[in-house]
């Protein structure tokens, strides 16, 4: 444990109700996550500050916000010891409910458009026998643990720009289902995601892959989908 210090950190939080931002001087604790900062503000400075979290261990994906512009999970991002100021904003491209809380509806609308649920193939009555080293699992497994936190959506630059774009998370999900031999709707899905509001909108900004708190690579999924359009689905 490091020595308790009496250092302070200057936090600027964008607030929705007065329409302005507010700056707080918060006592540092060690270790300190961004979430701890918010809880400290809530307890010591302003109990009305709006933010959200649930699991605090990077599993629920509800605490996403932007620190100095970069989308992060508040519960998983430590404040570096040498940092003395920080700026917090709600996610970009999503309607703000209050302060740092956004409405994820647009994100999930895009998610819903790729038919995110399995359409089981005929006769799938037993858990499928698929070896973990099969090509299909090699594609799927590394891309699986999306927590729908919206960090990629916010960092996309295209999806969050109110253009019609399915966005990295939804496309990643579509890629997984198309690769899944248990799913019967792959062809239909591939058509959907390669339509004009699909993969072609991607400009390889790599914002998604750079910020994903789970270390997934949605940009790779998009490249894969573009390739499958030409070469056909892997089967």
């Amino acid at each position, binding site marked *: 444990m490091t020595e308790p210090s009496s250092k302070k950190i200057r936090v600027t939080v964008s607030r929705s109700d007065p329409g302005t931002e507010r700056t707080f001087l918060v006592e540092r604790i060690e270790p300190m996550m961004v979430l701890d900062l918010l809880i400290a503000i809530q*307890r010591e400075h302003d109990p009305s500050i709006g933010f*959200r979290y*649930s*699991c605090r261990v990077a*599993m629920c994906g*509800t605490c996403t916000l932007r620190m100095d512009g970069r989308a992060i999970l508040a519960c998983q991002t430590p404040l570096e010891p040498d940092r003395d100021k920080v700026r917090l904003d709600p996610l970009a491209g999503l309607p703000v409910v209050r302060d740092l809380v956004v409405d994820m509806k647009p994100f999930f609308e895009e998610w819903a458009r790729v038919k*995110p*649920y399995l359409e089981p193939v005929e006769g799938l009555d037993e858990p499928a026998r698929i070896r973990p080293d099969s090509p299909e699992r090699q594609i799927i497994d590394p891309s699986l643990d999306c*927590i729908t936190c919206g960090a990629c959506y916010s960092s996309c630059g295209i999806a969050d720009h109110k253009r019609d774009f399915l966005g990295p998370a939804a496309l990643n999900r579509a890629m997984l289902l198309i690769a899944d031999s248990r799913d019967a709707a792959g062809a239909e899905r591939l058509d959907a995601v390669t339509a004009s509001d699909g993969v072609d909108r991607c400009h390889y900004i790599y914002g998604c892959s750079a910020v994903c708190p789970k270390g997934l690579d949605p940009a790779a999924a998009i490249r894969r989908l573009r390739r499958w359009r030409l070469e056909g689905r892997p089967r």
Partner: protein
Amino acid sequence: MCVLHAAQAAPELDITIVSKGAVGRSGCTRMVQGGFNAVLSPDDSFELHFRDTLEGGKYLNDQELAWTLINDAPKVIHELETRVGCFFDRGEDGKIRQKAFAGQAFDRTVHRGDLTGIEIMSRLLDQTFRIKPRELGDVRALDLLLDEAGEVAGLTMLDVRTGAVAVLRARVVVVATGGAATMYRIAAPAREKTGDGVAMCYRAGLELRDMEMMQFHPTGLLAGESRLTGAVLEEGLRGAGAYLYNAHGERYMERYDPERMERATRDIVSRASYQEIMSGRGTPAGGVMIDISHLGAEEVERRFAGMVARCRQIGQDLAREPVEISPTSHFAMGGVVIDEYCQTSVPGLLVAGEDAGGVHGANRLGGNGVAESTVFGARAGDRAAIVAPERDLRDPDPAQVAASVDRALAPLQREKGPSPFQVTRDLKEAMWEGCGVVRDREGLVRARERIEELTEQAAQIAVPETPQVNNAWQETLDLANQLTVARAMIDSALVREESRGAHFRSDYSEQDNAHWLRYIVARRGEGGETEISLHPVELTRKRPEPDGPPAEELEREDLEEGREDVKR
């Protein structure tokens, strides 16, 4: 799971999901790391799983519920795999891989890496895009509404985003708000889990059983004031041979379980650590140390990458130095009394998951938790589909609605009062000290008095007047429920004058099967006090085996070195 089944059985039903957090992204099912117990292998059997469950639960379980759990678990795994779209880890042969878990005689835990919950909840959430139920995310259920005949009429609710209150009329209400394990200073679960469902049912006059049973996980991270405190370090560390030290550098497990040392069961290790800490041999921050660096930094980094990363975040290096830990409250075994169809004594009211009591008895096996929430969730859905069409919409009692809404709005209207955050802290402190891992009469009585004081304070809390996304207000409402549940827990714990499973009384340190194969039921009396009654456990299927292997015995080989994937 419940919605999925209800919609499948009766597509014409009008289904509404009310969730205090984001739909599908709050609660603990999402946080399950370890996995899901189900009998899938021909070499395993329902009887074996049943025995493990009862041995774990110290025969306090409702045996019919436990049997139902075990019987349905494989079906649910099948359904998750073939209909819902989950994919669990496979073995070399392409079949579902099952790993070892503490306290079980057979490797039967199904998992997806160490993020099983994300896979299950994400895929279930995806199903909602197919079924399209009405989703009320960020809407908190306040109270159950009954009609004059005492049957379910609906519930009152509060939109966290706008602060608006509303009444939802329903033919059937399924309560599954996931227990109340957050009310301790050091706690693992998601923040929504403040006993809302249990408290709602209690206020509606339902019976709660086994409320004294609260499971503590021995290796929760200590990270100072940070919210990461309480996050679980996986059980596999102990399995792989990690040492536990107190502040004097003693391997204190020598005193508690010289034979199995750190590999003893969860309850024993939790208890040992707690006693070390409470008797002043803990670290200044109130913890003990876990050290696994003797395996070699590289080895630790390879085998426990996730845990090393988790520690690194708080500036500690698990691979090279000891890390500070403490027992952390984890799971509430107690809850509302239900039958195998999730039905309660109130017609139209179903309860499932952690809110229900009796499945796990005095201690839950790792891996039976998600199994419970999915199995009984599915059963509640099936049942709702049968019950709902038979029932009509009732008219809630207006006085009840008004009382519920007034209670919810009161803190907004007060100008001055204590801060909810402080009172919550005090509650967590009081429960940790008085009704924690080790209990005694004196401590419980003190905690009881403290709860009374805090209840009075809670009634005076004032919060900022913004109704939208007002965390302070929400915390106040959580607090009221937590206090209700805390009281039921303490009252039950006072009555059980023996030690069994998760409930350890230092003044009655032996398990007493002759007198205490009885479960404790708490309900709200006329005047608001807790009414306690005792009921013998019905040993419908299996009695305790005096000669059989004690539960601890079974666990040892599961925790053997090399089993890196042993989790909770």
